[in-house]
Structures are given as structure tokens and as C-alpha cells.
């Protein structure tokens, strides 16, 4: 069903006044264009443009029919998105057509359904000139959009602006105000998020080039700070938290002042953008890796002696099968996004936090020495040896030209400096536990899902205490660890490195959150 466009205007009166003021100035300065976003269309992925023209067009067409454009959103019911709207059904009646009045029933309480249309002053429902949108889902009028202009609460009768030749059958279903939530999300997204995250959620809005770290590109369907198990998607709750509290150490600010329903609408829009992007990405992967339908590969094949007719046939087949390909991919996608909301996906510790004692931290320190120092460094300053090695690009299988670590978006990243006391994914013990248990897939921090939960808690205790560590607090623990290692035949890390790092840390003050942590 198509959700026709509404302006991206926010709702509160205060903002309206503010906008009105801006509008006056805006017209004078730049004309009417001041309001449309600079690129009010979805960006096409680079991989899509590499496909041969017919296939690329077909991918774009398929995407548009499933998602629409930023101005005209489409509610594709295959996806686990709450587009907003209130479902209802018609009831038995003996009125015969032509008519524009019919009895209905809602799952929700009727006074809730028409809450926003009800006026206390006169005790009547006001639907305005346009009326409230009604989309038929099943029955004679399936797929049609009508407009409700009246409601009789006693008989549960709806009046529509449109006249119907024959009465809708009892049990025909419809949705009122379909897509309201997604549209509200879009308005908020355009106001608060678009300038960094881009219209398409590609993390490449107008202000993005000035930011380090770069804003998230949602289009891989991957997020760093989530509460779900390693392979699972992000939950609505996680996105809510990020929007509400921001991400310290990055440019993602807190939007705490958003109302709860605004927050939920925004979360839904971000999920929708993310699913749209991921679908395009997966379709491209399928068409490139499995079918080999890029311009480049086709050229090579023609050079190798394949006839253009042969190839055209393959292209035609791919285009003809595009709807099935999208349906299939969407099904998988829908399943994984829906499963993230399931209790089973959530990381819940099986034991309570181990009391935060020196002994616990010392055990955590040993685990840290075992698993974490390669990236986070001997003292947790984020300067482990991996940050100086050349890493391999997983897609091209080539070494990156610069040393250091890269995330799946190809941006250089630094392991967190744990002495700063800045925790991007939240500073509650459970946040750190989930970071360890689930890892941070997109930035290649490994997960420790199979590690004993008490050991994880020890490590959480240790990590949370790093900013407050005294210079020689763990010297004995370290010695003991290295002796054990030696006894077991393991190799001791070069002491020179350790000493250099330790000397450096003695000169800097620990236990402060004053300095920023960029990177």
C-alpha cells in the first residue's frame, strides 16, 4: 500500500511557529527549495551501478516498488515493521449500495481509535476536509484508499467521502491512518538525523564528511551496540537507547527530549531504512557473486568467446526472476529482524555480577592479558600490536594500505582506550557484559559467548576499574600470569614493549573523563 506524502513538518505548535519564522526568512533567501532535503531520493549502492544496465534497473525498480521514495513511502507488509495505523473490519449490515456508510469493528477500543479526532468541546468527531485515510486490505475494495469523514459511536458506523456501488462484505478488513508511524518517523529523521546519516541511511549526509568517527551506514543491517547474541540483529530497545542517550566519544548526541512515541517512530524508520539498504546489498551480492552479472564480468566473458545472445538470455532470466529473488531475500531478512525482538536473542547473564573485589579484578586482569592486549594494549590504552600491523580487507583479500584496524564499512577504527572511562555502548555493567559476550561484530571485536560468565564478570569488573587503577596495582598479578604462562611453555611478550607502555602511563594521569576520546 502506498502512503502518499506529507510534508516533513514536525508537529508541536512551538516548532510550527519556529518554522514559520524560518520559512519567512527562507523564502527571501533561497526560495521555496529551502525545505526539500538536498538529496531527497534514495542513493543507489555502488555495487548496483556495477551491474549490467538491465539488471541494475530491475533492482532499482524492485526496490522502489517495495519501499517507494523518501516522498512516497510504501508499506511492504512482508517486513517486520510497525508502519502504524489501526486495523479494523466491517460488520454484517442490511444496507444496500450505493452507500458511504457501513458498520465496523476494531480490535482496539473505539474511543482510542478516534481519540485524535474527538473534541471535548462539542463531544463530536471531526475528520477535517480530507478525512482520515482508510486503506482496504481485503474484499471488494482491496488495495483502494478511501477517506473517513464521520463516525457514529452508537452504531459503530463509519462514513466515507467516497460512495460505494456495493456494500463491503462483512469481515472485509482495512487499516485506518496507515503508515502514520513511519511518516512521523520520516519527519523526525529528516529533522534530526538526515544531515549526518543521509536520506538513505548511508551515513553520508551533508555533515558526515566532517565527522570522525563517521556516522553509521545502516545499509548493511549491522550495528555495533546491541544487546543481542553475536549473530543476531539489533533490537528496537537498543536503537531507542542509542537515540535517547547518544554515544559518548562520537558525534551521536542524545535526543532525550523526544517524546516516547516520537522515539518509537524514529526507531521504526531507522529499522525500515536499514532493511531497505540490507535488501539492496544482499540482492547485489547475489547478482554479482552467484550470477556474475556485472558489466565487467560480462565484458570478460564476451572476450572469452561467449555470445551476446547467450548472455542476454541470462540477463533476461535474472530480470524476470527479480521479484522472486527479492521475496526470498526479504523473507530471510524479515525472519532475522523479527527474531532479534525475541527473548531468545537477548544476552542475559546466567549469573549475577561477581562482587567487585580486588580478587575478581585480578582474575579479570588475567583474562584481559590472555585475550585483549593485542588490540587494547597492555594497559588498556587501545594501543595493542594489532593497531600497528597491516590488516587484510576481507572483501578484496588485499592488505589495507594503512596499518591498523578497519571496520566492515572500511573505516579505520581504534580499539577503545579503556583508561578514559568512556563507554560508547553504555556504562552499566550489563552493557559491558554484553559487549564482551556478544563482541562488536562490525568492528571485529571477537565475542566471548562461550566463556564462563563469572570470568566475563571478573573482566567487566577489571575493565570498569581501569580508569581508577593505581600504577602498580597489578604488577604481582601480571608476574604470576607470565610465570604460569612460562611454566606452560607459552611465550612471554617482549618485556621492552611492556616497560615502554608502563613508563608512558605513569606520566599521564589516570582516572579522568575530562579529555575526549576521538577515534
Amino acid at each position, binding site marked *: 500500500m502506498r502512503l502518499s506524502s506529507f510534508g516533513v513538518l514536525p508537529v508541536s505548535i512551538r516548532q510550527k511557529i519556529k518554522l514559520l519564522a524560518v520559512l519567512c526568512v527562507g523564502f527571501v533567501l533561497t526560495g521555496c527549495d529551502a525545505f526539500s532535503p538536498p538529496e531527497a531520493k534514495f542513493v543507489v549502492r555502488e555495487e548496483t551501478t556495477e551491474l549490467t544496465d538491465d539488471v541494475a534497473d530491475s533492482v532499482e525498480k524492485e526496490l522502489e516498488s517495495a519501499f517507494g521514495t523518501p516522498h512516497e513511502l510504501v508499506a511492504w507488509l512482508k517486513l517486520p515493521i510497525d508502519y502504524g495505523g489501526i486495523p479494523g473490519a466491517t460488520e454484517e449490515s442490511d444496507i444496500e449500495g450505493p452507500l458511504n456508510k457501513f458498520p465496523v469493528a476494531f480490535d482496539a477500543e473505539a474511543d482510542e481509535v478516534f481519540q485524535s479526532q474527538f473534541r471535548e468541546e462539542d463531544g463530536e468527531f471531526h475528520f477535517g476536509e480530507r478525512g482520515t485515510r482508510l486503506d482496504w486490505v481485503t474484499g471488494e475494495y482491496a488495495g483502494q484508499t478511501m477517506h473517513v469523514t464521520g463516525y457514529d459511536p452508537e452504531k459503530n458506523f463509519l462514513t466515507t467521502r467516497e460512495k460505494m456501488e456495493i456494500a463491503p462484505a462483512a469481515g472485509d478488513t482495512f487499516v485506518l491512518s496507515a503508515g502514520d508511524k513511519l511518516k512521523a518517523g520520516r519527519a523526525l529523521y529528516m529533522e*534530526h538525523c538526515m544531515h549526518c546519516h543521509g536520506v538513505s541511511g548511508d551515513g553520508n549526509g551533508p555533515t558526515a564528511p566532517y565527522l570522525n568517527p563517521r556516522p553509521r551506514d545502516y545499509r548493511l543491517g549491522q550495528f555495533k551496540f546491541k*544487546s543481542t547474541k553475536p549473530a543476531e540483529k539489533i533490537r528496537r530497545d537498543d536503537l531507542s537507547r542509542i537515540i535517547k542517550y547518544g554515544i559518548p566519544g562520537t558525534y551521536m548526541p542524545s535526543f*532525550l*527530549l523526544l517524546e516516547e512515541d516520537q522515539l518509537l517512530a524514529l526507531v521504526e524508520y531507522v529499522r525500515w531504512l536499514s532493511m531497505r539498504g540490507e535488501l539492496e546489498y544482499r540482492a547485489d551480492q547475489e547478482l554479482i557473486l552467484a550470477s556474475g552479472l556485472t558489466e565487467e564480468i560480462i565484458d570478460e566473458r564476451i572476450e572469452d568467446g561467449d555470445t551476446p545472445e547467450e548472455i542476454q538470455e541470462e540477463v533476461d532470466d535474472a530480470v524476470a526472476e527479480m521479484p522472486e529473488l527479492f521475496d526470498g531475500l526479504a523473507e530471510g531478512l524479515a525472519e532475522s529482524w523479527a527474531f532479534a525482538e525475541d*527473548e531468545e536473542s537477548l544476552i542475559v*547473564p546466567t549469573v549475577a*555480577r561477581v562482587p567487585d573485589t580486588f580478587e575478581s579484578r585480578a582474575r579479570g586482569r588475567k583474562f584481559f592479558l590472555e585475550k585483549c592486549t593485542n588490540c587494547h594494549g597492555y594497559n588498556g590504552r587501545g594501543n595493542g600490536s594489532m593497531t600497528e600491523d597491516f590488516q587484510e580487507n576481507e572483501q578484496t583479500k588485499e592488505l589495507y594500505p594503512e596499518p591498523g584496524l578497519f571496520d566492515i564499512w572500511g573505516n579505520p577504527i581504534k580499539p577503545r582506550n579503556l583508561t578514559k*572511562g568512556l563507554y560508547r555502548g553504555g556504562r552499566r555493567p550489563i552493557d559491558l557484559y554484553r559487549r564482551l559476550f556478544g563482541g562488536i561484530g562490525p568492528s571485529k571485536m571477537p565475542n566471548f559467548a562461550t566463556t564462563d560468565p563469572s570470568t566475563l564478570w571478573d573482566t567487566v569488573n577489571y575493565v570498569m576499574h581501569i580508569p581508577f587503577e593505581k600504577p602498580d596495582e597489578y604488577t604481582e598479578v601480571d608476574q604470576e600470569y607470565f610465570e604460569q604462562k612460562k611454566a606452560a611453555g607459552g611465550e612471554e611478550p617482549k618485556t621492552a614493549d611492556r616497560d615502554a607502555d608502563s613508563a608512558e602511563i605513569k606520566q599521564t594521569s589516570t582516572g*579522568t573523563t575530562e579529555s*575526549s576520546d576521538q577515534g
Partner: protein
Amino acid sequence: MRWFWILFFAVCPIAALVICIIAPGMDWWFPSEAGSPLGERIDSLFHLILYIVTGTFIGTQIAMVFVLWKSSKQDDERAWFSHGSHNLEVIWTIVPAGILLFIALYQMDVWAEYRVVSNFPKEARRAPVAEVMARQFEWRIRYPEPGRILQIQAQPTDLYAVNELIVPAAKPVMIYLKTQDVQHSFFLPELRVKQDAVPGQIIPVWFEATKPGEYDLVCAELCGWGHYKMGARVVALAEEEFAAAMEQLETEQSDDGFAESGDDDEE
């Protein structure tokens, strides 16, 4: 035509007078009534200045209309050119200087109480409620654990929040204002507090919300492209509610996600 100008210049001061008289009552100058005792005194200073300026404005306008009216009657007399009057100039220098000096001295009490740390209310100075760290583009807040004193250095027991500063109502409170990057300005319009946050400095700011409620906290220093995003709120709570809110914050922050039921992620 000449009568039009005479009338025009006569109507101006009259309109100005009317506006000045009704403005304070209509809340045109300030965002709502001052929500703090010091804010009320700041308002009354503004009003005093408003009255002085209004009087001066009306006086000069009357003089001008008088000159216009008088010379409009002298059709054939030529205007004469003057090199000024020494006496007049001395008068109109000394009188405004005196007024300015009066304002400068008269406001000193309020200024001192507002800005000079040793004049801050003792109970506010003794126990700062929080450190407010401005950064592009939000307000990060650090509270001491209930029962402890806020330290300049972060403590393991500190509590953290963002864009919402909770303070007890009806009592003076002090915060430490800092910035992580550029200059920002801590602005509580309803409480009449505005203080720049300057890189490298820890600036004590005190205020008192007379009534419990929510107050706007905004940034009043153009600090970058996202300056407009720095909207936050100060929530003033009655004493017991404040204690409860702090306790809740503490509980939330020490959440280890372990619950018998297995469902924990509600806030």
C-alpha cells in the same frame, strides 16, 4: 505635511510609553516569570533600566516634537547654524554618566551574589550537585553518589546522565560547568542563569528553582553546526523525590541484567 511629521514624532513616544507600561505585565521581555529568587532581582534590575530608558526616550522625543512644532510656525525665519553649547554638552554628559554610575553601583549586590563564588549561598557551595560537561552537541552530567561530595576527578561511584540535570527544588544548588571541546553557554532562561563554559576551566554556577518542575536548559553560545541540538532540561524535584531519583539512577547504572525472570531490559 509638516503636521504629519509633528504628529508622527508625537505618537512615537506615546506608543513607546504604552508599550513600556504594559510590557512587564504581559511577559513580553522575559520567558515567563523568574523561577528563582535571584532571577526576580535580576528582572527588577531590568525593569529599572527599562524605566530609566523609557523616561529618557520620552524626554528626548518631547523635546524634538517641541522643536518641530515651534519652528513650523516660523515660516520666513531662516534656520541658524550653531557651533554648540559648552554648558549643554557638559550637562548631557554628566547626567547620563551619573545614571550609568548609579546603575553600576545599584546592581553590584546582585552581580556579586550571582558571580562571585565567595558570595554564593553556603549550602550550595558546600555540596555541588553535579558536574555539567558541555560537548558538541549535548550536556553530559556527572553526579556524586548520594551521600558523597562531588570530586573534580571522576570517581568509581559517580552517576552519569545526559541532557537531564536533576536538582532539588527550593534550595540553592551549585554545579561545576565544563566543556569538552569548544565554548558553550549554560543557559536556563526561566531561572535567568547564563554562563559560558570555557575550555580548560571549571566554572561554578549556582541557581535555585523556587518551584519543582521542568526548566529548559539550552546552549547560548553558537558552538558549531549542531548548536541547535543542545536542548536539554533541568528537573527540579522536592527533597524526597530528588533523593529517590538519585537512588533510581544508581540502581539503573548498576544494572547487571541478571534477573530470575530472565527479562531485565526495561528501564
